[in-house]
């Protein structure tokens, strides 16, 4: 059982850091949903919001790492001009060409929304701190922007998994 360098990077990009962002999402969303005056009171507020802020900054960092490794490490192997690259193999067969034309074309662009949106959401949570409990509009904005980051990452992740099944990066 062994992995090539390319397979290892593909696993790091998709199954380690990319997946970590996706599975961490519910923790952040639950934290944001819980920040309501009727649900959260007392001295613990500051600690809870600080923990949520750290969580969201970490998620934003993970999103950045995912897109940077995806674009600058794995993608060049995927799109290499040689006939054995995943892109060449997919395009050579009309039955699989759409995986590239639609799947990869969407994935490579939509993924980049995730770090931008996750960073903005993390900033809003960090900036307001415990005041976020009182700021319904800001809380809602952070939640929606954060959820859109998840949507972008999920689309990229799902297509990444399918593409790697149709034409693995080796």
């Amino acid at each position, binding site marked *: 059982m062994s992995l090539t360098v390319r397979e290892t990077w593909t696993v790091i990009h998709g199954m380690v850091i990319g997946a970590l962002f996706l599975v961490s999402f519910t923790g952040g969303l639950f934290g944001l949903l819980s920040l309501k005056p009727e649900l959260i009171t007392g001295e613990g507020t500051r600690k809870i919001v600080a923990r949520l802020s750290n969580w969201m900054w970490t998620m934003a960092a993970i999103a950045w790492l995912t897109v940077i490794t995806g674009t*600058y490490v794995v993608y060049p192997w995927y*799109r290499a001009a040689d006939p054995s690259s995943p892109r060449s193999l997919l395009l050579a067969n009309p039955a699989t060409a759409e995986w590239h034309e639609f799947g990869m074309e*969407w994935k490579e662009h939509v993924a980049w929304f995730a770090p931008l949106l996750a960073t903005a959401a993390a900033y809003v949570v960090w900036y307001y701190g415990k005041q976020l409990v009182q700021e319904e509009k800001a809380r809602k*904005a952070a939640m929606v922007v954060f959820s859109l980051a998840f949507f972008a990452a999920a689309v990229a992740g799902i297509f990444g998994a399918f593409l790697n099944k149709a034409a693995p990066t080796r």
Partner: protein
Amino acid sequence: MAAMTESDRKPSGPAAAALLSVGVGSLALGVFTFLAENVKSIGKALNWYHPAGNLTGKTGLAIILWLVLWVILGKAWQGKDVELGRIYTVTLVLITMGFLLTFPIVFQMRF
């Protein structure tokens, strides 16, 4: 929880700056994707790192625009209250447009 006094209260300006700038950054990502696909010279100019193609320029330029605008708006709205609800709505419209322009069926349209 101790009541928050008016002087403790943080104004909405910096949060609004973060939201609006990410909206513009998202739209920029969509616009650059669309232009790179439809205008050959732009697609070529955005090829900042050949092994990864013009994805590097589209995303790089969108990030630069986002960060520069964030700094500018952050300074302009520092210590100020702005209408966060309206900024949030505009941000969502901009993000939606960005998403649409990075959807292959849209950016692969030929004009």
